[in-house]
């Protein structure tokens, strides 16, 4: 255990140069973008003088290296600056929006795993059967339907026509009170507060967007599970296990599935990272106040602080995510060691 802790420590230390690199690159890239925030934020009827005033107020009149030093100093003290487009400190924006995105993405992934992994396993054990075809159809449909389309269709059917889904008004309908903020995840916060009415309200808002995202993410997971299971099932140790007379369940779950899990976890990590940043369209359709739409809007108006804050937060998140995935590997397969890397 102590060995594992020290490796975690080493891994975190190794990520520091990465983070520093991200700080520099995000700063340079935002400055390289076309667009002039001073002109944009000076407003419709601004003249030269007022644009210059705004530029000074934003600190954009200083030379780039000096701007960078100020930025680096602020980041080091935990100040990510003020977003111009939302008018709030970036740290506060991220703290509000990241949990919203995480809650949506995690729910979607759980849903997607709950369907895709059993489906993949079933398809692999019965290749060519009806289940296998169902898996193929779902996978093809899932990847080929863009999320905003699925989202709009789901709203049309379940909200507009059938009226069983709640109004797509973001995380919580306005008749509920937002739960006291502990984690920022409404489901967890409401449960902690024991406010089950709000919990149900939050869950209902979550269903359609989570299903939309789950449909999209199901495809790679089901494909990967099926392929990994197929190769595991055709390997020598399974033949040996079967020959030794082990029960089918034991063979399937203890030996084949456990070995097939590694590539699935890898895919899961990848799917998670791209969904978190790429669910902008789902967020827009469901008025979900997430981090994807925040970043895109900030980018459109050259809101430097917000874009940099977003990139930095994502970088930190991925460092953490990779660490968790590597740790999961060692749990699943004891042969994989950290130390050798």
């Amino acid at each position, binding site marked *: 255990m102590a060995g594992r802790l020290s490796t975690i420590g080493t891994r975190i230390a190794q990520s520091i140069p990465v983070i520093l690199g991200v700080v520099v690159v995000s700063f340079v890239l935002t400055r390289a973008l*076309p667009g*002039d925030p001073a002109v*944009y934020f*000076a407003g419709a*009827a601004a003249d030269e003088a007022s644009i210059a005033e705004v530029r000074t107020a934003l600190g954009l009149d200083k030379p780039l290296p000096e701007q960078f030093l100020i930025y680096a100093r602020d980041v080091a003290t935990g100040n990510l600056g003020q977003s111009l487009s939302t008018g709030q400190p970036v740290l506060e924006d991220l703290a509000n929006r990241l949990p919203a995105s995480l809650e949506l993405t995690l729910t979607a992934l759980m849903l997607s795993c709950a369907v895709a992994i059993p489906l993949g396993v079933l398809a692999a054990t019965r290749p060519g059967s009806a289940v296998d075809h169902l898996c193929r159809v779902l996978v093809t449909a899932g990847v080929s339907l863009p999320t905003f389309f699925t989202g709009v269709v789901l709203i049309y059917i379940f909200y507009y026509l059938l*009226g069983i889904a709640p109004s*797509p008004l973001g*995380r919580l309908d306005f*008749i509920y009170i937002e739960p006291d903020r502990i984690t920022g995840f409404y489901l967890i916060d409401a449960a902690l507060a024991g406010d089950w009415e709000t919990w149900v309200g939050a869950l209902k808002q979550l269903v359609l967007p989570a299903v939309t995202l789950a449909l999209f993410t199901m495809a790679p997971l089901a494909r990967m599970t099926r392929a990994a299971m197929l190769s595991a099932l055709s390997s020598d140790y399974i033949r040996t296990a079967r020959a030794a007379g082990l029960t089918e369940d034991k063979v399937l779950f203890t030996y084949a599935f456990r070995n097939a899990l590694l590539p699935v976890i890898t895919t899961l990590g990848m799917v998670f990272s791209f969904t978190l940043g790429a669910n902008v369209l789902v967020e827009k359709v469901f008025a979900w106040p997430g981090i994807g739409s925040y970043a895109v809007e900030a980018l459109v108006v*050259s809101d430097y602080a917000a874009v940099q804050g977003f990139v930095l937060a994502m970088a930190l998140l991925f460092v953490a995510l990779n660490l968790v995935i590597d740790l999961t590997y060692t749990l699943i397969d004891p042969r994989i060691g950290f130390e050798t890397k």
Partner: protein
Amino acid sequence: MTNETSRRGFLKGAGATVLGTSVLPFLKVLPAAAAGSDVIVAVTGQTINSLDIHRTGTNRPSYQVAVNVYDRLVSFGTKTLEDGSLSYDYSVIEPEVAESWEFTDDGMAIVFKLRPEGKFQDGSPITAQDVKWSFDRAVSVGGFPTVQMKAGSLEKPEQFEAVDDLTFKINLLRKSKLTLPDLAVPVPMIINSKVALEHATEEDPWAMEYLHKTPAGSGAFKVASWKAGEQLVYERNDNWTSGPVPEVKRVILREVPSPATRRALLERGDVNMSFNMPNKDAKELSGTEDITIATTPIENAIYCLCPNLSFEPFKDKRVRQAIAWSVPYEEVFQTAAYGRGAPMWGGPSATPADIAWPQKFPYSTDLDKAKALLEEAGYGEGFEVPLSISLSQTDWMEPAALLIQENLAKIGIKATIEKIPGANWRTASLVEKRLPLHLETFGGWLNYPCYYFFWAYLEGHLFNSSNYRNEEIETLTGETLHMPVDDPDYAPKIKRMIEIAWDEVPRIALWQPALNVGTREIDGYEYWFHRQLDVRGLKKS
């Protein structure tokens, strides 16, 4: 927050009675129907990013907070338009915080008498010192508020004088018809200076940080809660002293970025209002039972095609006229605007009959005339030109540009469409003025033709993205800008300006845009020049 708890208590009380988990599946029908007669739910696609209009970076949708939560000295009246919808009335100035006002004998100062009963939302009286502090702030902070104040010749703090607690005096720099109307735009709002000063610091003498999130006004509504990017809740100020207390108790403004979702919400009846709907939805939903669509042409605004005079062929006015004769106006209007707004082409004569602005330009689609003009100007074999549009306004710019491009090809001009990112658009089109042929939208808050000309036709001015200069227009605009409309010289001069602008066409009018608002089960929506939601007059029907 206590008021949020009471909101739930209120909703439960009003019709919903006990909301046990067993009835939760039906909760979704609750908002519009059961929210009762005094809660209105509205959706909009835009984000409110500050509660203080004077702040640097405050965006347009945020201006509504200045309207609903703050008062001004004066306001505009209300009139009913031809289609039965309400609009503010530019010709009538009404008292708001001021009870009465008069010009001094020499006409170089206005003296306002404040209402003696005037109270801020915290109960403290509205004094002339508050007005002075607020005006000082607006002219000192720079950026948009200062520019807007300047339009009314309100430029420096020395002009404002608190004579006594209830008497406020503005010393004028020049006699201008724009001063009084400029006091009724959202910018010169009256802030509770006692509260603001408590939160002012040495680096922040105007309490920008505090008022950004905490309004301190005297308006008809208070902000009960604000979550940027999600929602803003207005709660009625039961002790409003500047007008009749509003009928609705609460207005919930929810941000929903996707227009399809906003439309579904309105159609399903879960919201009472969809503010600033796309033209397409407005067209398709008009005539729907229970839904009222108000489409109001935006005053003093035109969507234009601008040939830039810094591009060689456009220096010749015949080439600009040829472009104006080649635009397929009707198709552009129907495709890009879904026919919502007012046509700005096909005027009967090259000399204007009156000083209405905007009015129909004397051009229509006539390719033969266009070709002949090009021949005459020596460009019979045509030329190539980029036609620039903004990526953040593709909804109307893209279809318009494609149709224009097609017709330009017919007269031998090869236009290539160049899409410019939204963040870069203003710099390229208005500041650097470097786009040879582009689409442009300018609308003036102060509804006078001379004001439009001031911004859009004078050399070097921001919205003159065509780099146009005409000596006569320069002189006439300068003369008419501050001149009263009833001056006998005013109308002839304006007519002359319009005539020149038509003949030389540095801006080719396409159509006058419109603001679409869909409502259900509510009355009292009023159009304002600032194009933001004024919730003060709304009521449930």
